[in-house]
């Protein structure tokens, strides 16, 4: 499977970031496994430790398995001013996890992130590729419920 993803791109090092994105997105647990790193290393002809170096530099990559849905709540100042702290507390109680953890059923991982560029509708969070803005505690509850149902 990793091989297949690689072969969509030319074997040039400058495609590394795109390949890693696709590998991570296509894994149900949204992470990049050791096996994946090996495959990419062979395909691009670069040492595996170079790939680890890149992986750990960028905050969006994970080398540990995560939930089916990644919640990324913006913690930057404009969202903070509009009350992102309350939203964080709501998410933590609702999902019964801390930041960086995954729910027991494997459905959600909660992460914090820098500005998502939707500050006009702060506070904001992203679940996978969808942005949710103007969050309130009630809205968060609805959204989580909806995503959980799929």
């Amino acid at each position, binding site marked *: 499977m990793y091989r297949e993803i690689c072969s969509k791109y030319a074997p*040039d*090092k*400058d*495609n*590394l*970031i*795109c390949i*890693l*994105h696709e590998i991570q997105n296509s894994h149900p647990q949204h992470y990049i496994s050791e096996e994946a790193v090996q495959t990419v290393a062979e395909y*691009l002809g670069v040492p595996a430790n170079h790939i680890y*170096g*890149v992986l750990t*530099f*960028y*905050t*969006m*990559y994970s080398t540990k398995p995560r939930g089916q849905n990644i919640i990324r709540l913006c913690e*930057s*100042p*404009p*969202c*903070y*001013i*509009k009350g992102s702290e309350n939203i964080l507390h709501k998410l933590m109680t609702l999902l019964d996890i801390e930041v960086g953890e995954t729910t027991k059923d494997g459905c959600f991982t909660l992460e914090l*992130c*820098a*500005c*998502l*560029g*939707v*500050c*006009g*509708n*702060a506070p*904001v969070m*992203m679940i996978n*590729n969808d*942005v*949710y*803005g*103007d969050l309130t505690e009630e809205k968060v509850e609805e959204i989580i419920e909806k995503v959980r149902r799929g």
Partner: protein
Amino acid sequence: MSLKRIDLLICCGSGCISAGALKIKERFHAVLSEKGLTNEINIIETGCMGPCDYGPVMVIYPEGIFYKKVTPEDVDEIVAEHFVKGRPVQRLMLQDEDKTIAAHKEVPFYQKQVKVALANCGFIDPESLEEYIATGGYEALGTVLTQMTPQQAIDVVKESGLRGRGGAGFPTHMKWKMVHDRKEDQKYVICNGDEGDPGAFMDRSLLEGDPHRILEGMMLCAYSIGASQGFFYIRAEYPLAIKRIKQAIEQAREVGLMGKNIFGTDFCFEAEVRTGAGAFVCGEEMALIHSIEGERGNPTPKPPYPAVSGLWGKPTVVNNVETLANLPTIFVKGAKWFSTMGTETSKGTKVFALTGDIRNTGLVEVPMGTTLREMIFDVGGGMIGGNEFKAVQLGGPSGGCLTAEHLDVPVDYETLKARGAMMGSGGVIVMDDQKCMVNVAKFFMDFCVDESCGKCSPCRIGLKQMYNILDRITKGEGQEGDIEELQRLGETVAKISLCGLGQTAPNPVLSTIRYFRNEYEAHIKDKACHTKVCRDLFHFKIDKSRCIGCSLCSRKCPANCISGSREDKYTIGQVDCVKCGNCQDVCPVKAIDRIPGIHSDVTAHKEALLKRKARED
């Protein structure tokens, strides 16, 4: 020709999408087909219209009616009333002091604005090459390619006075000229779409809302400098922008606007998209170049500048999205036209992102030199929730805070710099009098500590130290001399850091010290946060004259520290209070207040503890 009689423009910028615009669009499709109206009404998804706060918004032509905060439930009414019977729905229009504003053009938010970069955002369908061409798109490219030499094109940009919109405000023509003059067969142009400044989202809106404009701008640059290959570096947090740019590149290729011999000339060009992966520092041009090369996005010392040794060691121009967006219009309308707008040193218009405690959050484009007051109060509608204006943070984490006394300062590169702020990417974070400036400074510092790539030690260690001091101050453990230490550290980090991140990261702290020193002092000396934001520097108090003795607070207190009775009323045991604020939330008569400063019981308790500990030792 079609029988269409209505153009329904639904804003599908990320802001409106996050507020549910797509659901509304689907509902329109459903209702229109149910009523057999699909061939009379054009549904057009546009990019960001600007007033994100009112999202989802839409404009209906030919009347140009503006609706705000539309919900799927409203769709039936809009169709039945407005589309079928021609009676626009008053309830969804903007209200301005008892007056209902119907027309898009009359919305106060748009009044002082002059749209150059944003001209098409919210007006055309960003997925249609034809609509971009209809607004005069690619005319600049065609004219320049067929009628100008690269040097002449650079001269136009020089005459326009255009400066980079990505932060530093470097004159665009100078960068171009440097690369133009280098004799190499391979050169590159990169569009910097990494936009990581908290509070900035104009680049996203431009990429999403008018992708062909950015592409045309890139090609104008490519021709002028002699590049045949371009890259869009867009952060991964912007999936829609990535999709739209990729689509625009495909469309341009299909009609021969990209590829070989464009407009029948010798100019050949290809563009590709590369994405980031969540690292703020990759917005810095050298870091960005390394990231495209498939490396860690670390900045490297300059010189050499990208103009000399950039992508794969070749001469490279890195330009911001908004910088590129201005180019097509400069070539169509002329450098003179552009340079009549703005101030002596800052020409043209600038897009600002209004956020924070302001009524109309969103994107505004105004001539350079517009005052903060005009921007915040006339365009932005003033403060929300009846609070007073206190400060505005300009230029994100690398910028600085300005106060009410600066409201009449014209906004341009030099004026802001002289006052300790920065144009940056154009983020305008407005704060009301409920905000604690020490806490805000701490938050910006937290951002920079997180985003420091760690390569150079002043930035990595110095910023962390500054953060620790700020954290201490907000927790009531500030000491005499902390302010001076912050200033000393800040100045050192700014001076010796490797890249712009470290060089500018101390700005928020230094500027808040400059303008709000008394707040720092209150935190350190009086152990009081007068805005009652810092948890350790205020306490809760029940006002017995207002308390009705209902016991609700006592029952909701997680620390079990509120006691009393219906007769005696209730009091808070200050020593055990964890400041969760539940009591204040649940009190039915609002009898609980936040009082600045640490309660004397707590201070006494702490001293006693210390003494006991000293004795035990």
